[in-house]
């Protein structure tokens, strides 16, 4: 904001290209915005190529191809080929639904570097229930094909109350499928996960038990499989250093071309996030209101402003402050120094209570539910 020295702006390193909001799955913890059905427009192939070229020139090198389900885009191979020629490391982040051997080969020929396959749980029944689509066996077959064709494979499992007790079986599944990396992504409560938080947030005891099992496994598979453990920040006493600092490293482009400093920033008011059809990535990154909004530390309130850890965690997550407190400038309530930390404690208590009562159903991510959110 005002006073931030623009010569301090570092170039983007990570570009997350959300190619589409379309998805055959309906996971109730999806990070897409609740009102995604409001944005049916999608960038063209040429738009994506232009964006990739501009961001690469600035120094972006890791490219996540995500969604929704990126496989829905028929031009995925063409986008991958362009990205690879520019020198990106190309990551396909997919549900694997609809992926077959011919396309795995075609993507390899186009230059795709890595495939991340997500599976919802270790049992068919629970995985298919959470995905809202019969997909478990197909996903496992795809995972084997990904390895057969020589890709490094990340298996991603989003962890929450429905599957956290399955941790030993999830780890065994990762071994069986030959994953090179296992991402155990404790649910982050944005988008659909925020709407379903009472039904998804595990208790501290459940977290600790699962984490101990995962840590023991990490030692066991050292040298064979790497574990990415996304921490459950509701049970921490310091917030995450969200996005490695606002506008320092990460650039997300939503399906309709809106450029976001993080993939949840669409939920924040007043940012006026720019569209790639209205300006170059260079202009967006350096000059737009949205990307400068929380750069540096001048925007911070107390207790962040005088905190000696402010350049370590940057005050935590702006979206979390907004979702929980209604004030995007506030200290992330996850921080035990935050005057709003009780909001986290209350959320944990409410979720625990809901586990005992279990009266409301999960809200699945699909267009009808999205339209209902827009109406309300």
């Amino acid at each position: 904001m005002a006073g931030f020295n623009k010569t301090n702006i570092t170039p983007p390193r990570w570009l997350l290209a959300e190619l589409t909001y379309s998805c055959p799955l309906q996971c109730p913890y999806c990070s897409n915005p609740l009102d995604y059905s409001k944005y049916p427009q999608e960038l063209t192939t040429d738009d994506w190529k232009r964006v990739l070229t501009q961001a690469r020139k600035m120094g972006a090198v890791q490219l996540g191809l995500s969604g929704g389900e990126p496989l829905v885009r028929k031009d995925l191979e063409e986008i991958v080929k362009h990205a690879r020629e520019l020198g990106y490391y190309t990551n396909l982040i997919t549900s694997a639904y609809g992926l077959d051997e011919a396309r795995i080969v075609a993507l390899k020929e186009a230059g795709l570097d890595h495939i991340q396959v997500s599976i919802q749980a270790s049992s068919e029944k629970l995985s298919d229930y959470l995905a809202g689509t019969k997909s478990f066996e197909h996903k496992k077959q795809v995972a084997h094909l990904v390895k057969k064709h020589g890709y490094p494979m990340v298996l991603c499992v989003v962890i929450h109350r429905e599957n956290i007790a399955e941790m030993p079986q999830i780890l065994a599944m990762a071994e069986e499928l030959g994953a090179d990396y296992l991402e155990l992504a404790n649910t982050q409560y944005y988008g659909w996960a925020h709407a379903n938080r009472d039904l998804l947030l595990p208790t501290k005891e459940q977290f600790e038990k699962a984490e101990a099992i995962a840590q023991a496994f990490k030692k066991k598979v050292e040298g064979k499989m790497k574990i990415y453990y996304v921490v459950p920040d509701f049970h921490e006493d310091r917030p995450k250093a969200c996005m490695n600092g606002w506008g320092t490293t990460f650039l997300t482009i939503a399906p309709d071309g809106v450029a976001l400093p993080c993939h949840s920033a669409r939920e924040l008011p007043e940012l006026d996030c720019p569209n790639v059809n209205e300006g170059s990535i260079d202009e967006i990154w350096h000059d737009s209101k949205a990307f400068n909004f929380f750069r540096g530390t001048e925007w911070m309130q107390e207790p962040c402003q005088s905190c000696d850890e402010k350049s370590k965690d940057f005050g935590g997550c702006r979206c979390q402050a907004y979702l929980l407190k209604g004030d995007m400038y506030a200290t992330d309530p996850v921080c035990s120094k935050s005057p709003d930390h009780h909001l986290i404690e209350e959320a944990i208590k409410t979720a625990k209570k809901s586990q005992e009562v279990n009266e409301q159903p999960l809200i699945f991510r699909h267009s009808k539910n999205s339209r209902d959110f827009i109406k309300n």
Partner: protein
Amino acid sequence: MCINPDLTINFSPMYRLQWEEVQQKNVILYPEGMVELNQPSAEILKLCDGTRQLTQIVDELEAKFQTTHLEKDVLNFLEDALKNGWIQQN
């Protein structure tokens, strides 16, 4: 994990070694991650192409940089690289 001096060393196909013009440095790229390399590390890794054993790598580096006694530093780095999975011997 130890480097076997009798086997050649190759860079793992699970990683990519690449020069980054904007950063003016070599990097290792892998799923969702990147390691920035200093120049000596990059010079060592570029010689891990499956045709050279440890002593050959050391000899070439010593000749290129007109110095001696690199073996210990090179070996230490390669053992770390092996542990990280960046290189392989087979």
